[in-house]
């Protein structure tokens, strides 16, 4: 009989600059990554505001963009890529990600 899958959660805060972080949450069952959520946050007046978010919420890979107050602006399809790739994008483009065609990156 197969036992219930055990979930291993890995939560990371990656500081890219003093006022920019990439918050990553990943859930694994064995070697399989069952969930990922990578949120690029920027600090404004002491508050961390979501700016871009990549995740597979409800099994759909997509990327959300937020306006300067943290309100969702749009959602685009996205093909699943590892955290290291998303971190590279964040370090390369920073806040300019908001003006780019993220589905093509």
């Amino acid at each position, binding site marked *: 009989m197969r036992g*219930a899958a*055990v*979930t*291993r*959660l*890995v*939560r*990371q*805060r*990656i*500081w*890219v*600059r*003093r006022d920019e972080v990439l*918050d990553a*949450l990943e*859930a694994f069952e064995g070697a399989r990554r069952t*969930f990922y*959520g990578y*949120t690029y946050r920027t600090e404004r007046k002491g508050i961390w505001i*979501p700016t871009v*978010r990549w*995740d597979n*919420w409800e099994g759909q890979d997509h990327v*959300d963009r937020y306006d300067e107050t943290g309100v*969702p602006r749009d959602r685009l399809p996205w093909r699943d890529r590892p955290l290291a790739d998303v*971190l590279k994008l964040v*370090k390369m483009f920073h806040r300019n990600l908001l003006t780019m065609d993220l589905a093509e990156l």
Partner: protein
Amino acid sequence: MRVEVAREVGTEDVVREVSVLEGRHESFEALRQRVFVERCNDPGAADDYVVWRALREEGSTLEERTVFDTPDVFRALTPRRIELLEYLHGNEVPSIKDLAAKLRRDYKNTYDDLAALEGWGLVSLAREGKNQRPVSRVTSLRVSWER
């Protein structure tokens, strides 16, 4: 350059984590309602849901890391602050005043360093009555260069 700070999350931490989630969302059901029925777009709520759901399952584990992918790390990790982290790793202290006394440091400087470390997520200051109890959120620190 990359500095990776890891923290072992034990049973007590998981209890504390669930208590924080309860404070933030009231109950697991309320959070589930928020993310699935009200379709809230707050990424923090979605992450909280994934964490809480997993922590309700027997045997699930949580690992935490803080990574500095910026030279700004040296603003956070000055020699005196490393000394604070090291002391807190090996000792429990009831208050900031007590920590300052143990390290023979001025209270204000100790407080300022702890506040800075808290800002970088390396220390938490737990309110206990009139005191704030400093707790290290670091169990290992690794520096590497990656291409």
